[in-house]
């Protein structure tokens, strides 16, 4: 856990004395655009010119460009983290294109052109036809594509003073908020991928809940205009002012294919006094085929700062996708009596690898954190839980409860647990429970004997195993997550 909480220092200090070494190779490099009717994509490679180009394409203010450049210069001196328990071929960061304008036209003309495997999955998830089209990049009917839903939605939010838009839009409309908060929880100095993200991030969501407002609906990226194009380097920023509440849903259960193999998102949450942020994720990136080919590398930095007294941040995640997942949604519990929660289900099958967990950093007094992690491994996959609980010197009366369970299907997969506990205050109470079990043959037999087929029996047992996490998800999401689990584990027993 070498990327932990040095981030609490202001980033400016750290970056100011960084000497800028101009990359000689970059001067030879000519960037340009491959323009066709459908999209604009930058040529491969990364240097300061590319970053300036991204920033100017987005009409960003000068200070934003500077921030990106600083991040880039910092990144160049960093090395990829080696500590996660995942293995993949070395990534050539100069072999990636860092800018692609949103596609203007759908790629396909009808669902007939979509991979039948994908359609079969849509079917199982019960996704409506029009939505299937949208998700697989097929042209949609004007009616469905109309922004009317989103518009009514926006009006309701506007009335309450809630801001929900893309980061790019927020940079134009509310630069002062971005300037104040962007990078304040995850500075670019934080880790390799956070630095890369800061330098090149494409877009993402911005949410601002003003003082005293309870957001009346679940905010989902789904409703954000222009959300179909999920960037390779997404950036999300959510701010909840005093006494406010918001529940945010990220992702969707439909399998998402993407030609970009590397994904490095950053999510920052800020909860002020008495504020609560609930952040739920269902992640189903393409995991690669049964031999482990293809598949997305998902290296995410998610962190929430409970800045105010009695503030609360909950992360709930259901991770079934990606070839490689590297992700530790964390909470920095600064405010006295603040609460951090992490509920996670991570499923790996075939050749998937996941190294995921959380960090709970207790700084304030009487801060409380709960960690419930359920790892399910099948096939030849590898599933690691990595969690840090740090109780600082002044965190009088801090409490943590960690429960970490792994379930194995078959005998070729692996489950690993790496708990790190650092306690600097005597009054703290830290509890840790862990278990590893094989999916019970006797349980499957029992369900079979009651007329329930093996596939359904496995789903039932697995859903039971994940119950504590699913109950934290918003109702609709929970139902979808269950179906998703079933699909991910299809054929892994019996």
């Amino acid at each position, binding site marked *: 856990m070498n990327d932990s909480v040095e981030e609490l220092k202001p980033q400016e200090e750290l970056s100011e004395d960084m000497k800028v070494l101009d990359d000689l190779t970059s001067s030879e490099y000519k960037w340009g655009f491959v323009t066709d009717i459908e999209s604009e994509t930058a040529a491969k490679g990364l240097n300061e010119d590319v970053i300036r180009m991204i920033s100017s394409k987005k009409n960003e203010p000068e200070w934003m460009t500077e921030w990106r450049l600083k991040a880039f210069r910092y990144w160049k001196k960093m090395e990829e983290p080696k500590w996660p328990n995942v293995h993949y071929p070395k990534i050539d960061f100069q072999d990636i294109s860092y800018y692609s304008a949103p596609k203007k036209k759908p790629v396909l003309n009808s669902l007939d052109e979509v991979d039948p495997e994908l359609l079969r999955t849509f079917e199982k998830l019960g996704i409506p036809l029009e939505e299937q089209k949208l998700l697989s990049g097929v042209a949609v009917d004007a009616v469905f594509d109309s922004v009317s839903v989103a518009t009514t939605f926006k009006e309701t939010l506007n009335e309450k003073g809630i801001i929900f838009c893309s980061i790019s839009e927020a940079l134009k409309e509310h630069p002062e908020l971005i300037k104040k908060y962007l990078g304040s929880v995850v500075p670019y100095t934080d880790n390799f991928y956070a630095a890369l993200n800061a330098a090149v991030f494409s877009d993402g969501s911005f949410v601002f809940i003003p003082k005293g407002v309870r957001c009346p609906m679940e905010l989902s990226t789904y409703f954000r205009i222009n959300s179909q194009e999920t960037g390779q380097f997404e950036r999300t920023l959510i701010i909840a002012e005093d006494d406010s509440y918001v529940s945010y849903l990220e992702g969707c259960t439909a399998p998402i294919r993407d030609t970009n193999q590397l994904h490095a998102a950053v999510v920052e949450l800020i909860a002020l006094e008495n504020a609560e942020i609930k952040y739920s994720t269902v992640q189903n990136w393409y995991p690669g085929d049964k031999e482990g080919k293809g598949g997305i590398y998902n290296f995410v930095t998610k962190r929430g700062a409970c800045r105010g007294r009695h503030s609360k941040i909950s992360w709930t995640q259901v991770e079934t996708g990606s070839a490689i997942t590297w992700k530790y949604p964390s909470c920095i519990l600064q405010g006295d009596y603040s609460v951090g929660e992490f509920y996670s289900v991570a499923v790996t099958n075939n050749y998937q690898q996941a190294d995921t967990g959380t960090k709970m950093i207790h700084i304030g007094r009487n801060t409380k954190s709960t960690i419930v992690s359920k790892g399910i491994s099948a096939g030849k996959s590898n599933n690691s839980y990595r969690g840090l609980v740090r109780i600082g010197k002044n965190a009088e009366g801090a409490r943590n409860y960690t429960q970490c369970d792994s379930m194995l299907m078959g005998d070729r997969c692996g489950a690993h647990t790496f708990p790190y506990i650092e306690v600097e205050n005597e009054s703290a109470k830290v509890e840790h429970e862990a278990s590893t079990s094989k999916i*019970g*043959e*006797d*349980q499957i*037999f*029992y*369900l*079979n*004997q*009651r*007329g*329930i*087929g*093996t596939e*359904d029996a496995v789903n*039932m*047992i697995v*859903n*039971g*195993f*994940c*119950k*504590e996490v699913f109950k934290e998800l918003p109702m609709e999401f929970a139902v979808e997550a269950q179906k998703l689990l079933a699909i991910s584990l299809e054929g892994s027993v019996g």
Partner: protein
Amino acid sequence: MLSIKNLHANVEGKEILKGIDLEIKPGEVHAIMGPNGSGKSTLANVLTGNKNYEVTDGTIFFDGKNLLDMEIETRAREGMFLAFQYPIEIAGISNATFLKTAVNEMRKYRNMPELTPKEFLDKIKERAKILGLDETLISRYVNVGFSGGEKKRNEIFQMLMLEPKFVLLDETDSGLDIDALRIVSEGVNIYKNATNSFLVITHYQRLLNYIKPDFVHVLYKGKIIKSGGKELALELEEKGYDWIKEEELQTENK
């Protein structure tokens, strides 16, 4: 209903059942008694299709169909039910969800429509009442934290919900207090009719006072060494197994 001929079965390469013949007709109640380790539960596992048990010889026909060709769940859907000696716990799944899934699987197999939530609830309430089953057990996770007796009662409750035509009771009486034994037996008796059959595994004649068997068989070292009417159970209760073992030895030596 059930016709077992020359059944041999192994567990982990060791032969446990060594040639069983048994005919059970619709409406009949058969009891199987026998010392510990004689193979009674093994027989129940073989009948229900547990894959840890390998049939090496013999045939089993269930309602004229070859049982050994069927998957575990198919046997169940065909109407075979085992009340487990040691019921299994499943965390995170409520008894109600579990039962609803099972009941609907059975109905689907019989081309019947799924029960509406209301119908299901009514059925649950009615059957729970017969067994005096505490309704809170229905919303709790399957068998998790149930007392020994509650688990056994829950097995019979499942039987009443699934309406099988052939029921195996594996030591359902063990772990039940005196009142529970009577109530559970009553549940079985209410369900019993001219078309369904029972195979009751027990160590105690007491249960057979409530659930009256038409035949009693003694299983010893993987074979049925004696069969008789319900008076055989009384005799066993009184004299133990030694005299039959003796008889068996003598016939073997002849």
